[in-house]
């Protein structure tokens, strides 16, 4: 894969015989090169997915700690805000001397961008539980652990899912820049084709990245509806 980035000065566009000179997008060429895009798409999915999962694994417990110990909130917000504010390319470059060139560096940078939104949304969600709901649960005889698992977590879910939705789309778009560090994802083709007059390659990679973000967004919206059926229940509705 990395060889491709160091490819010939005149790029090998493959068999373009079916394409016209000034064509915006050549389907034949795209079909010929589908294997390459498919491989990059799969990479893109797992590079993003790893970052999002690790982000959740860090941000959810951190939010829970901040929910229980409010003095933990400010340091956590400051830390994740700093990570969020650093320009992404700068972040990638900053990390190279520490973690080297590879997937690890990419994931550290991508995870860094997920934390603020996931942490903040989760904390907001945990705090959104109406006090009377908590009071009723306690008075009825639910233990603090049962209140957390049965009441607080489910009620925080809509806020968590809203954060996850933004984070997913952001991560998928940021992951296109990961190819600057190491050959992963659709960013490879974007970097490879960006300076050329034959733009089918650039369009293919760019549109695939956008489609991936849209599909992921739709999946999360669907998942949200599935896990929070009550959120749409209103008077008069069923």
């Amino acid at each position, binding site marked *: 894969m990395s060889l491709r980035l160091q490819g010939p000065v005149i790029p090998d566009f493959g068999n373009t015989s079916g394409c016209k000179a000034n064509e915006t997008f050549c389907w034949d060429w795209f079909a010929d090169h589908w294997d390459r895009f498919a491989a990059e798409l799969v990479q893109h999915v797992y590079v993003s997915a790893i970052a999002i999962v690790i982000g959740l694994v860090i941000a959810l417990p951190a939010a829970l700690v901040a929910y229980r110990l409010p003095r933990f909130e400010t340091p956590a917000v400051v830390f994740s805000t700093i990570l969020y504010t650093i320009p992404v390319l700068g972040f990638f470059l900053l990390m190279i001397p520490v973690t080297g060139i590879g997937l690890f560096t990419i994931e550290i940078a991508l995870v860094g961008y997920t934390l603020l939104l996931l942490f903040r949304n989760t904390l907001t969600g945990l705090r959104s539980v109406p006090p009377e709901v908590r009071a009723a649960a306690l008075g009825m005889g639910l233990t603090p652990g049962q209140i957390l698992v049965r009441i607080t977590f489910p009620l925080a879910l809509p806020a968590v899912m809203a954060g996850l939705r933004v984070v997913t789309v952001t991560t998928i778009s940021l992951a296109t820049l990961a190819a600057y560090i190491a050959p992963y994802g659709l960013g490879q083709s974007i970097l490879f084709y960006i300076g050329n007059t034959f733009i089918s390659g650039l369009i293919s990679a760019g549109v695939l990245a956008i489609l991936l973000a849209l599909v992921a967004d739709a999946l999360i919206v669907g998942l949200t509806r599935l896990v929070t059926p009550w*959120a749409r229940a209103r008077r008069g509705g069923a």
Partner: protein
Amino acid sequence: MTDPATQEGPVGASHRGEALAIEFRHVTKRYPGQDAPAIDDLSLTVPPGETCCLVGPSGGGKTTAMKLVNRLIEPTSGDILIGGRSVLTYDVTTLRRDIGYVIQQVGLFPHMTIGANIGTIPRLLGWDKERIAERTGRLLDLVRLDRSYAKRYPAQLSGGQQQRIGLARALAADPPVMLMDEPFGALDPITRAEIQDEFLSLENEIRKTVIFVTHDIDEAIKMGDKIAVLRPGGRLAQYGSADELLGDPVDDFVADFVGADRGLKRLSLRSVGELADPGREAPPGAPSVSAGTSLRVGLSVLLAANAEVLEVTKEGRPAGAVTLAEIREAAGS
């Protein structure tokens, strides 16, 4: 915790459905850093199956007193007994699961269906699904909501319906004791009157010992077998039936609290039938009311007709008479 009886809760399975007395014994609650106690040497007993309304001005400690029973608040000194056993000897969680708890803001779990809300405690107690479904259905019948409501979410219900579910949820595990903290306080007057009436008729079926907190003396008169008036500082001013409180308030504080119209309120507690002398015949032309009419309405009829004697009828036939003087006496102390 190691005592097996503790795991059972105050009543245990064998006592479910049976009402138990609640007794406050010299209970005092002081909050650290506050000179005045919130509850000051409170002693009173609510007999099994009776409803005790705790009334008083804000700061009187009504809610504090109630929360001492299920140990949402722990007493500084004194003891509270349910069915003769101190609540302090039980595991807090098992104690609370044996006590129905209803609050003004209801606090239904918005992410659970009505059925799941009602079934919360039975589920934690390990009841099987069929038993929970059966119980949920019966409770919906009891609070006069269609069984199809079990599948809805709280947000789809009106305030009155939500509080009915709050009641059903509190009754789910058939607790011997109920704590109700201004349960109908957030409802509009019409809905409130409706649900009060329903709760009164429901109480006849289920026989619970109830502690009912309210700031509304009229609600206390309507709902309570006994009324405990707390004065600021958490001291018990008077404890007795509505009739005793209205007819014989111990001091100006209680007299003020029950209201200057306590005579009229007292009249609404009794019917003309109770007071009527069956042997007496009303003079011709006397106004007439049926025996079930309250003395208060009877008085109103007498005043409107400018008469001295009221004819009382049962099923349309004369059943005695009541005089204005007798009504006046019934209103007084």
